[in-house]
């Protein structure tokens, strides 16, 4: 067996629980793992949310996340990066995204996990459809 891959991702039916990401990032070479879980809030922009439905362009999600991961590995001393994102329905209180970053030292893991989420939110082709009691809307820039 070679060492676990520096990057891996999963895009599929939700919700995500973070365990795949955490376990894949962990290892005896890494002093720490930072796990980020994004969960669906009961309210968004002042409206009651019933649930979300995510749509994705899976081929490009994987390609774009791989590019982001390569950038992060070049900027920080990291062990492994794992990303999981739900597509389809996700209920309030459930997680839609999990990011796990392991590193020898915690500053790099915290920085990379935060930067990954920043990049994911602006570059990775996934769209959030918010469903309310009286309608729904696609979320995006300016909506």
């Amino acid at each position, binding site marked *: 067996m070679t060492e676990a891959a520096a990057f891996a991702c999963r895009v599929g039916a939700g919700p995500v629980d973070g365990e795949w990401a955490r376990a894949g990032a962990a290892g005896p070479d890494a002093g720490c793992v930072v796990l980020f879980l*994004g969960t669906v809030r009961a309210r968004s922009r002042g409206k009651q949310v019933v649930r979300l439905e*995510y*749509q*994705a*362009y899976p*081929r*490009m*999600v994987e*390609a*774009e996340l791989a590019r982001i991961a390569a950038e992060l590995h070049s900027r920080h001393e990291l062990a492994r990066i794992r990303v999981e*994102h739900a597509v389809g329905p996700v209920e309030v209180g459930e997680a*839609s*995204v999990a990011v796990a970053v392991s590193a020898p030292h915690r500053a790099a893991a915290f920085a990379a996990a935060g930067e990954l*989420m920043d990049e*994911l*939110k*602006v*570059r*990775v*082709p*996934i*769209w*959030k*459809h918010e469903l309310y009691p009286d309608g729904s809307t*696609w*979320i*995006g*820039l*300016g*909506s």
Partner: protein
Amino acid sequence: MRWRVLLFAGLRDAAGAAELEVEVRHAGACVADLRAAAEVLCPALARHTYRVAIEARYAGDAEALPAAAEIAFLPPVSGG
């Protein structure tokens, strides 16, 4: 030449289709040409902001369109 164009989110709803076949008649077509042709075919697209990806990578408007490349029109993303 013709390209298959994938649509997502609000763009997909506006077009009423998950993909379009778009033709650009002149040679050496670029991304901007494909946008223009698609918006003639489906005028609702013109009311939306979107980026274009060629083979799963963001492309600028001046980029050439390789034959048979997979093209996608991507409205502002909102994952996370």
